[in-house]
């Protein structure tokens, strides 16, 4: 039933209003006298050397990609886990094969060193 989600919708509106209100109060209640030193990005007392949007390690991308695969897997497992008491051997075997294929991929990633951080 979709009506059960109504409280969540109201809660969402409430939370958005609350969070914006907090920030508005912060702007209103706090002082505001900016100067260029205060507003410069924090970097141990130096002037920033270069733009902070620098290159970063490609492994962060790799983790994100792996995450998508495994999160999808979890999304597949959720409905399966709920009905596991009713689907019997066929369901169990189907999921076992699916997990096995994924495990092969996982072992491949592992051996390729995609999970190494050093």
């Amino acid at each position, binding site marked *: 039933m979709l009506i059960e989600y109504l409280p969540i919708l*109201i809660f969402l509106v409430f939370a958005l209003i609350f969070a914006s209100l907090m*920030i508005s109060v912060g702007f209103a209640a706090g002082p505001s006298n900016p100067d260029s030193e205060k507003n410069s990005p*924090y970097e141990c007392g130096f002037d920033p050397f270069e733009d*902070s949007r620098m290159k970063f390690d490609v492994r962060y991308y790799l983790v994100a990609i792996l995450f998508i695969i495994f999160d999808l897997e979890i999304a597949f497992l*959720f409905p399966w886990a709920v009905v596991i008491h009713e689907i019997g051997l066929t369901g*169990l075997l189907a*999921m*076992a094969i699916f*997990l096995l294929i994924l495990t092969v991929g996982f072992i491949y990633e592992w051996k390729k060193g995609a999970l190494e951080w050093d």
Partner: protein
Amino acid sequence: MQTLHSLYNILVDIILIVIPLFLIVAYVTYSERKIIGFMQARLGPSRVGPYGLLQPIADVIKLLSKEIIIPSGANKNIFITAPIIMLVPSLLVWSVIPLSETFVLANINAGILFILAFTSLSVYGVILAGWSSNSKYAFLGSMRSAAQIIAYEIAMGFALVGVLMAAGSLNLQEIILSQSGGFFHWYWLPLFPLFIIYFIAGVAETNRAPFDVSEGESELVAGFHVEYSGITFALFFLAEYMNLILISILASIMFFGGWLSPFQGTWLEIFFDWVPGFIWLSLKTLIFIFIFLWLRATLPRYRYDQIMRLGWKVFLPITLIWIFFEGIMIYYNIEPWFSYVK
């Protein structure tokens, strides 16, 4: 008229959840400083009010009256919205948490899915905050933090799948009910490895010690929220502690029977019959919150590669094997994994 009345009821329920939640967050921060203080043979906050009990309130007033500094290189709009994006989902998850036998704001049938979806939204807050600050510390902190959160979300998701298999439902109320029968019927026993992994992954998800490399005050100063000040910082802080309490309450709901009495089925049951379910749930949750604080006082910080290794190479295989094992156990109706009645 009817709809107006029910809207009013919903609003009252929301207030009933939010106000105590903020008070609890305030006093978790107080007890954190107090407990860690005592563990390190200090006194902790003791000046404001008796035993320093008014300290959190003083903190709130201080944070509210501080200037909100927006760095000159920052993307202003994203910079301001990031704390909102962080706070809103961590508030919203509380709408599906069953706080007692009857009190739950939205008793939806996809409770766990909802929780998983909304807790993972906080990654956006982290990334946007780190990116929009245009500061190197913030950027590095947010990269680390995001990679860590998503890595442990896998382990956590698998642990949840284990609970679902045992309970056969996504509804949190039904998950609690399927554990009824006393202390040894709760899922911590049949799903013990998943429970441990869930809790450790929860500690990592909330970026708490010993997995707090994203904050790493000795190298990254404060991680992704280093450029935030005043109330914008307070929103991050609030979200972090609400997530901490959420992980604790979810651990007690999914592995320790939620509001069920621990004496169910023993001779002690009638003596504790008068204790409302909410008290049991709170006690269990407080124990987990205490463990969070205890960990922070005791353990040194992990190295980042160790964290990633633990998440991918230890937790993921263990959960996979355990889910496989559990599936076989359920298929052959072997107790205690098959305690499912419909």
